[in-house]
């Protein structure tokens, strides 16, 4: 991911995107086939589908699924990570489970969830959440292991209590780890959501891509992909990176 720093020049990004477009244009005009439409053709499809509302509709549904499973995975994964990082016994007990879930292919989880819970929204979100939780646990557990004993003792002497200790000592210390988990999480979750939609949902970007695949409609496929990648990138730049800066503002 590209770190966006204040005052860093923006032209390299624009130049590289322009270069990509030129390359694409040249390739499309050489091949002259509907399996590789020109950038302009894709743009026209994009404008058409945005105007008639189908693209925003499917995009919003996919984003809602991404958001639901992203926050669930982050919440549950952080809780498990903190507990495992703080307790040697629970860490040992949970570690082999963690390894199983880390190595479980996303496709297996998705198919099993659909088989066991039916082709439902709950099953879809559950499958994505289960896929993401182990990564969050591993990252947050590292943070919990590195918690400062000095500060925890300070909180104990000054009678902070559980809630105050969690809010003012534990969570700020875990901040960088949670944000790292969130950023890699966003990247993974939306890709898995597309697969989930392809296999068992009748709405969303994944479902549409599958439809376009059957129709051999590459222009629509690319239009949806570009729209979706742009939205995710905006979230990264507009939400996650400012959050990260805010969480780090106390650093020298």
């Amino acid at each position, binding site marked *: 991911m590209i770190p966006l720093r204040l005052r860093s020049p923006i032209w390299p990004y624009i130049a590289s995107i322009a270069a990509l477009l030129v390359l694409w244009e040249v390739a499309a005009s050489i091949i002259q086939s509907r399996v590789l439409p020109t950038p302009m053709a894709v743009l026209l499809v994009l404008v058409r589908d945005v105007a008639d509302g189908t693209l925003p509709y499917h995009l919003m549904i996919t984003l809602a699924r991404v958001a639901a499973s992203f926050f669930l995975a982050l919440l549950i994964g952080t809780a498990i990570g903190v507990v495992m990082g703080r307790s040697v016994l629970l860490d040992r007990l949970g570690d082999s489970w963690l390894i199983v879930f880390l190595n479980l292919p996303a496709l297996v989880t998705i198919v099993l969830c659909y088989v066991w819970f039916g082709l439902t929204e709950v099953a879809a979100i559950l499958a994505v959440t289960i896929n993401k939780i182990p990564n969050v646990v591993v990252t947050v557990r590292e943070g919990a292991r590195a918690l400062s004993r*000095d*500060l925890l*003792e*300070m909180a*104990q*002497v*000054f*009678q*902070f209590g559980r809630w*105050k200790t969690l809010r*003012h*000592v534990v969570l*700020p*210390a875990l*901040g960088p780890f949670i944000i790292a988990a969130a950023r890699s999480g966003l990247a993974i979750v939306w890709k898995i959501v597309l697969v989930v939609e392809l296999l068992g949902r009748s709405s969303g970007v994944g479902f549409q891509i599958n439809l376009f695949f059957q129709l051999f409609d590459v222009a629509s496929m690319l239009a949806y992909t570009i729209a979706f990648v742009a939205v995710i990138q905006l979230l990264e730049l507009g939400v996650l990176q400012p959050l990260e800066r805010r*969480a780090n*503002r*106390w*650093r*020298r």
Partner: protein
Amino acid sequence: MTALEVDIREKRYPAVGRAGANLALQALRFEAARGELVCIVGPSGCGKTTLLNIIAGLDQAYSGQVTLPSGGDGRPMIGYVFQNARLLPWRTVLENIELVLRPGQSHRQRVLDLLAVTGLGDVAHVYPERLSVGMGRRVALARAFAIDPQLLLLDEPFVSLDEPTADRLRQLLLEVWRRQPTTVLFVTHDLREAILLADRIVLLSPPPARVAASIPITVPREARHDDAMIEALRRQVLGEFGESVRSV
């Protein structure tokens, strides 16, 4: 009136790896009167921090008993100034101090007064990592006084500061303590520092630590400016009790 009674029969550290079990404290008994400033002096590594951690309730793996001063309501408030300042780096100076207050205590004006007295008024909204070591220690001192503690524990709070800074902080400690009298245990390995501050000095023996001597300092604090007098007191203490605390 007795505010604090410490009666530790034994504190042992279990064997770890090749290091054998270690008897840190044994038959260590002393008391402190309400409002008394007691300096605990002992050689490095004799278990002074262990002793404070036991009194603070951080270390409960010992045999014996510690009776704390009674609090107004329920558990007594203990102010602890650790060797390192132990401030939350992600909270400003003001937030660090306000966080230790109990719900009924959050009077911002009082905290701001305390910051002004300790010379921290200008850095109230600064994050701790931007402070010098001396400033950080000052915040830790202000934080400990902010809760209006029944007992104040200080663990070599001025160590590794240059002498003028350490001396300013000692005067500051005395000044705040006069405004807010409370029972104080001040741990140090520096007998000179103890003589400057204490009502009474408790000398600890080398490990396993026990109380080697309890020496009241009767000279009024105002008269303890004179270096020659401090040195004379130091020699007197060492002369009387030097055997048990050679390394102090």
